[in-house]
């Protein structure tokens, strides 16, 4: 009875989504950490069109290379779930190691590198064979992950150790470590791979690291009038492909910083929802979405105008965000 009704509803939702996607072609997926769901937002109407039940404590999410699947860190299920976006059904789980929190997909789309927060390990999973390729030991509470555009480096930040661990993907081992500010949360390479940007939540800074030398070359600091220094806690970072901006989510400071990615000067602070966490850019780079954990919503930012244009209510504790173009 319930099952039949449920199918009916999601079919209708699916039909709506298909119609809408033909027009806008953009869909935003948001993981709700405390609801065990994903909210699906239509990029044109900015309305939540569906809520999909997923595993326990969903956090990091990312699209497959062909954008047909979404990988979901279901932290308390100790699995990475694979959601088929057409049917909106979990098709299988990938072995992820304990407590996966964040991950990154290699540029060839073949491997996911996953931070296992509770066991101080990074797990590399072969997506097609669904097997663990290898694991490496890293620092305490691994969190931020990225892979360099040339696929050579996997990087991981460990929160309590406060380091970036450089994993040589061919040698399958950590070959260098870069000390950054306390509690590094997120790492992203520039499009050309020459720099790695790393946020430090408790340090209140973003470190820019030269990939060739693995040395910190610049530390970006933030000051917002009327906000105490220790409430400025950078988490998510997104760099535009054209090298113009770096957007930095400042957590309980409730602002997104706009950093000139060439001069490293902070251009602006945009007021968003409460405890802004992760960010995602649309493929055309025109729109930035933020997850705001405490206010339970998503802010929509117009990248050219540097203005917040809309707020969309989602589930409890929105964490990860991914945009299908």
């Amino acid at each position, binding site marked *: 009875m319930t099952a039949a009704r449920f199918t009916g509803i999601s079919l209708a939702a699916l039909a709506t989504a298909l119609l809408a996607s033909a027009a806008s072609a953009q869909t935003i997926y948001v993981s709700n950490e405390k609801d065990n769901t994903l909210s699906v937002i239509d990029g044109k109407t900015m309305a939540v069109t569906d809520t999909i039940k997923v595993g326990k404590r969903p956090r990091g999410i990312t699209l497959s290379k062909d954008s047909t699947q979404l990988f979901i860190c279901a932290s308390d299920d100790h699995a990475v779930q694979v959601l088929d976006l057409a049917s909106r059904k979990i098709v299988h789980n990938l072995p992820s190691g304990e407590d996966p929190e964040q991950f990154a997909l290699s540029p060839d789309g073949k491997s996911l590198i996953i931070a296992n927060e509770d066991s101080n390990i990074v797990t590399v999973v072969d997506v097609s064979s669904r097997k663990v390729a290898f694991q490496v*030991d890293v620092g*305490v509470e691994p969190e931020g992950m990225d892979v360099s555009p040339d696929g050579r480096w996997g990087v991981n930040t460990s929160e*309590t150790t*406060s380091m970036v661990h450089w994993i040589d993907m061919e040698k399958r081992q950590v070959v260098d470590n870069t000390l950054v500010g306390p509690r590094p949360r997120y790492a992203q390479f520039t499009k050309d791979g020459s720099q790695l940007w790393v946020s430090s939540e*408790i340090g209140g800074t973003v470190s820019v690291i030269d990939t060739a030398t693995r040395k910190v070359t610049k530390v970006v600091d933030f000051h917002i009038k009327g906000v105490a220094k220790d409430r400025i806690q950078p988490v998510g970072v997104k760099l535009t492909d054209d090298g113009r901006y770096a957007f930095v989510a400042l957590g309980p400071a409730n602002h997104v910083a706009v950093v000139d990615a060439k001069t490293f000067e902070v251009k602006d602070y945009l007021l968003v929802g409460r405890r802004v966490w992760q960010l995602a850019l649309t493929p055309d780079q025109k729109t930035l979405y933020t997850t705001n954990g405490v206010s339970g919503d998503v802010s929509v930012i117009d990248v050219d105008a540097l203005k917040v244009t809309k707020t969309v209510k989602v589930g409890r504790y929105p964490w990860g965000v991914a945009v299908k173009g």
Partner: protein
Amino acid sequence: MTKPRLPGLLRSASLAALAAVLLAGTPDAGAAAQTAGADSISEIRIGLLSQTPEPPPSVANPDEPAADDGLAGATLAIADNNTTGKFLKQAFLLDSVEVPPDGDAAAALRELAGRGDRFVIVDAPGTTVEALSKLPEARNLLLLNANAPDDALRGGACAANLVHVAPSRAMLADALGQYLVKKRWPRWFLVTGRRPEDKLYADAIRRTAKRFGAQIVAEKEWTADSDVNRTAESEIPVFTQAKAYDVLIVADEVGEFGDYLSYRTADPRPVAGTQGLVPTVWHRTHEQWGAAQLQSRFKAAAKRPMTARDHNDWTAVRVVGEAAARTRSADPDRLIAFIQSPDFTMSAFRGAPLSLRPWDGQLRQPVLLAADRSVVSVSPQEGFLHPRTELDSLGYDQPETLCKTRGKTTP
């Protein structure tokens, strides 16, 4: 009555663990193995001197503390430090010593110092902390007070070789008071136990009331020596008859009677202080700011939830580890100078970064306000502003400090 927490006087449990790390870690320790052999690993020894006062015989405590309360936190922090240390070729060792309630703490400290421990975490009553800080053998050490909340240790009895990881009573009282004032519950009925530390807790509450504009509208001292467990239902309604108040604040640090006040007061009022809504550094339900990770890591290691005492000892060991990682040094003099400098900050899963107040050696920190099964709030509360950091709205600020012997440098 008290069970010895550990077999033997001194143990170096982590020595074996360290050896394991060094042996096992070398092949897959990546950078460490690549650039240097295991022989270049520098060692940082940390002593833990614990002393647990004997509980008074009349206390009916349903939650007897675990035998490794405190020690388990220090042990986990050593493991955390070593995980980081393997990338920096640093190895941390813990020398743990348990001093009986009437034991010779000075002898224990000398033994730790003799082993080369320049950092000694003192998880003991304030009288022990003060006595140890004055020993000539302690002059070269950094003592990290991980337990005693006495404001006198941060005031008249402050010392250059002594830093305070545990919050003071004034900080705890301010943390609670800010919340009650924010709730507009400013009329307090203060009930104080008969022990000297209860009087100190009550003094801190009075100071808080004055600072934040609350009023102590009534005060009583709990002196009953009957078995409160049997008589509470008849005694407490009579005892708690007072003029109109918003919150009953209880000062009963050993837990002699405070737990019997809730639901038995003459007026239907909440209880806060040492029981009821409690200001504390840690609570088993705390999960914000990544705390869930520390909770699960601790639970996996110790097979029980982390207590406030565990957390204080964890933080004390992490202070040394953080300094060693930041300076990339194992030189104790360098680490001691760095810990006491304005550049030192660390994360401890309570939101704001921790750092040291130079005027009294107190670690600045947020304070949780916890009920039995939930964290109700975290102080400092919004609106209690401070030009330096809101954390300095808790406890003795620089202009009020009674510490004369520490440097006057501003942070």
